[in-house]
């Protein structure tokens, strides 16, 4: 469980996050949704400590994470996996070396054990026979999946995904969403996903918070989202004409 209390963050006097408080639950896919530029990435990075919050608290279980000194943060970080908006695979390493990297860095496994784990993770995300390829030789969807494999290599307790399916076709996007959801349940991780894709929201939105202009406007699940009376959220959810038509049919 990750608890955020009264989190504030600004850049050069420009307020990006305002007083965000939220609880992210274990074993569930927690979604942060909002328009482009609303502060989702900044919120996620403030939670994991890549940005320093101006004020507020971030708790991992009962540890106050954001006030820990660097070395103690590292201990909790070894339990985190993160999928970045642009995949962030290491260009100079092959697929296999990318997934193996955290194992090299933080375990004392033998080479055979590491390769076995790497192949297990790659198989889990359905990347086969591509071990020796470089990231530049992969498609966008494959990169995301390799990045997921790298993120779960050390069996993390916490998984963070920044727009796991942006730039993917709807089918591949759903495959990735399902994969993240399955992994979350299988290993009972605490998973936080940033997205502005309504398909994902409807597929895997077990707990959803909606951010608009740095404020948390709404919190609920995928069933409640269709009947909320929060104005900005409705604009977001029913942005396209298909959704608007469905809503008017539904209301009749």
């Amino acid at each position, binding site marked *: 469980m990750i608890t955020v209390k009264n989190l504030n963050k600004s850049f050069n006097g420009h307020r990006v996050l305002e007083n965000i408080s939220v609880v992210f639950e274990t074993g569930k896919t927690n979604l942060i949704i909002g328009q482009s530029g609303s502060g989702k990435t900044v919120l996620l990075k403030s939670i994991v400590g890549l940005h320093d919050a101006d004020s507020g608290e971030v708790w991992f279980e009962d540890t106050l994470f954001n006030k820990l000194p660097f070395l103690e943060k590292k201990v909790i*970080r070894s339990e985190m996996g993160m999928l970045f908006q*642009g995949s*962030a695979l*290491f*260009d100079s390493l092959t697929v296999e070396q990318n997934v193996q990297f*955290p194992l090299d860095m*933080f375990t004392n496994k033998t080479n055979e054990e590491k390769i076995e784990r790497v192949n297990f993770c790659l198989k889990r995300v359905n990347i086969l026979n591509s071990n020796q390829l470089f990231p530049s030789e992969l498609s966008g969807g494959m990169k995301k999946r390799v990045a997921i494999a790298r993120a779960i290599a050390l069996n993390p307790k916490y998984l963070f995904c920044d727009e796991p399916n942006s730039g993917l076709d709807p089918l591949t996007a759903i495959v990735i969403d399902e994969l993240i959801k399955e992994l979350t349940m299988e290993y009972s991780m605490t998973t936080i996903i940033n997205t502005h894709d309504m398909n994902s929201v409807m597929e895997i939105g077990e707990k959803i918070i909606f951010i608009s202009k740095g404020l948390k406007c709404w919190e609920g699940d995928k069933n409640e989202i269709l009947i909320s009376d929060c104005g900005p959220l409705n604009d977001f959810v029913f942005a396209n004409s298909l959704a608007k038509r469905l809503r008017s049919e539904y209301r009749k």
Partner: protein
Amino acid sequence: MIKFLTLVGNYFILLKKVFSKPEKPSVYYKQTMRELVFLGLNSVGIIAIISFFMGAVITLQTAYNTENPIYPKYLIGLGCRDSMILEFSSTISALILAGKIGSNIASEIGTMRVTEQIDALEIMGVNSASYLILPKLVATIIFNPILTLLAIAVGITGGGLAGWFSGVVTPESYIYGIQYEFIPYYITYSEIKTVFFAFIITSISAFQGYYVEGGSLEVGKASTKAVVYSSLLILLFNVILTQLLLS
């Protein structure tokens, strides 16, 4: 002024991060070997070619400036030797390497920053500054002094060959000249400078790359700045070190 002080402050904060305890020495060792090849071995060619031609030019110029028979011919070899050892092998090579490996380091690290690869390292709990920069520092500090020796040897050879083929000096008097009143300390002096310059090139370029914000445009700017700033600092430290070491 405040901006400048912040910059200097950030530079030293980064250095402190670079020199903290490595997570996994074996991984660092492997990285250092890789950097020795990328930053070191891959520079052998350019340094050899440039030194060869510099040696040749210095010899010819010394020869044409000392045509008056009152100057003994061995002065030509001596002139080439001392220019190569004192300035060329360390300072000029360092300026060339600032262009080659400096821009390489800044753009590599800068690209990793803007594509969130550095964030990915941090989130795993890796000290990204140390992991990315320390192996490069160690590799250049080990290898650049070897490049300096190479530059001296190749440059003096190039000078001899140019003198011989153009007929401005006989091989015998050239060889006599390069041995005449040889001061071994000059080599030490040159190597000390090289180590300082290697540190400047790598740390300044890495600093420029590490704090890039934005996209590929900013990475390009950072690598230009890396070359400019490290070249300027090399010239400045050349004066300071020469005063300290030779006076």
